[in-house]
């Protein structure tokens, strides 16, 4: 018998599955206000009074439905940040990309989003930022293009 060849064969595949993820009525209301009026809304828990952005239908601490919508400003504070230097398909921008945790005025939690229109050397935890809305808005979280420093 002749000597058998050794080679590590692989089979190349790609799974591409289309999805339609329904946002739900609560989230839809948030996106509609964002898309049509460039407004940011939070939702308040009737028991602990926490204001959630993104909005949640149920307060996860009190485990009861949230009800009261609260109109929030488009300003907030940068709680933390990072600058991403590597490109990746899941990042819809070219590096360097700045991500920040933004605590919107009047909200209890933060929103993880992009920070833009900024010189990277000026980034500072605690700095004040304002939402910059996308020109073309589709009813999703990228209707906020990024948060920019308030001069």
């Amino acid at each position, binding site marked *: 018998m002749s000597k058998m060849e050794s080679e590590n064969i692989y089979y190349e595949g790609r799974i591409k599955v289309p999805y339609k993820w329904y946002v739900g009525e609560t989230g839809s209301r948030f996106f509609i206000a964002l898309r049509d009026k460039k407004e940011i809304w939070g939702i308040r828990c009737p028991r602990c009074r926490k204001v959630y952005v993104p909005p949640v239908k149920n307060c996860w601490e009190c485990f009861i439905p949230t009800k009261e919508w609260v109109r929030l400003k488009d300003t907030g504070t940068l709680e*933390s940040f990072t600058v*991403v230097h590597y490109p990746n398909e899941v990042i819809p921008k070219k590096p360097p990309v700045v991500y920040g945790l933004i605590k919107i005025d009047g909200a209890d939690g933060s929103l993880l989003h992009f920070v833009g229109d900024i010189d990277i050397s000026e980034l500072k935890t605690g700095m004040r930022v304002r939402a910059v809305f996308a020109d073309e808005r589709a009813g999703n979280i990228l209707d906020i293009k990024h948060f920019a420093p308030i001069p």
Partner: protein
Amino acid sequence: MGKRTAIVGFGQTYQRSSRKDVNGVELINEAVIAALADAELTIKDIDAVVIGNMDHFEGINYVDMWSVEGSGGVMKPIMKVTTGGTTGTTVAMCAYYHVASGMFDKVLAIGWEKNSESDTTGAIITAFDPIWERPNIGGAIAGLAVEASKYMDNYGITERDGARVAVRERLHALNNPYAHLHQEWMKGMEADKIVDLLVTSEQNQMLAYPLRMSDMCPRTDGAAAVIFASEDIAEKIAPIPAWVISTANRHNYVYLGDINWDANDTLEAASRKVFEKAGVKEPLKEIDICEIYLPYSYAGLKWMESIGFCGPGQGPRLVWDGVTDMDGELPVNPSGGVMSSNPIGATALLRVGEAAWQIMGKAGPRQVKKDVNLALATGFGGCNWADVMLLGKKRPS
């Protein structure tokens, strides 16, 4: 109360960046054979199997069934659990529950991953909410970078502090023949000299501030298997079994921005519960070694505080003082930890197996040079999920 339960065997593959010579099923088999050999059991002795990985890394959704040729699960009760980064510890907890319930005597826990077979960031992003988070987050590295950056700001932590953790993990890995990363150039060098190099070298690329290449875990192909046995037979199988003293897990993920980034709340709560059940009052003094799931360097500072080994902001002092080195009061990750090997579904099970081996005295060149009575293992998942398991040499009363 259920049956007291102990670990009686542990096996793993050599952790490598890519195992082109085996498919997933064959990789699993290597770890299972090693664990059975370690316990001196055969597959006939195993009553049930618990297996886990992260589905999207390989794109296989029925791993429990698909893997039976390798796992030995043919015609046995088998259950798959998958919880992201914590999968390995959750597999261990699930196997422990099987035995502790009194319904099974010997249960095989398996964790595995072939990270090389797909895109890590593409797979990890499926762990985040498709509507609110996937469009605007940058995968695992950026999320951890935001945490590190906040911790630095809170306590005046420096890049050198983070690098010191990375150096410890890589130096320890040099004692572990199974580890994926063996950075031989570090051998024999002073820790602070290596730290200086890491924070100044241009080759050590900044990925997402403050995280450089050296601050991150690798992506690894590998598998691990751990055998749990009941109090009726554990001591007959292993001369020194590693008893499960207590275990707990906590999860608080809603949206990333809602998590309290000033502390690791899930790890803190799970650790507290475990210590409370075990009667541990001073973790630093009472625990002999740790295998902590640290996916990146700064976690080795902040999360030490969350577990309760030191106060807020004191992580760096603990690490710089050498407390967590091999010859310190509390050696952390003698195996080299997650930052030296990260086959995701197996990663947390490696923590459990390595901690058990320290108690059993089987850790070879990475065995700590002191009596090990209590060993702590943890798991971390990207959505802020924490698993904690405390193992002990003494059979629980």
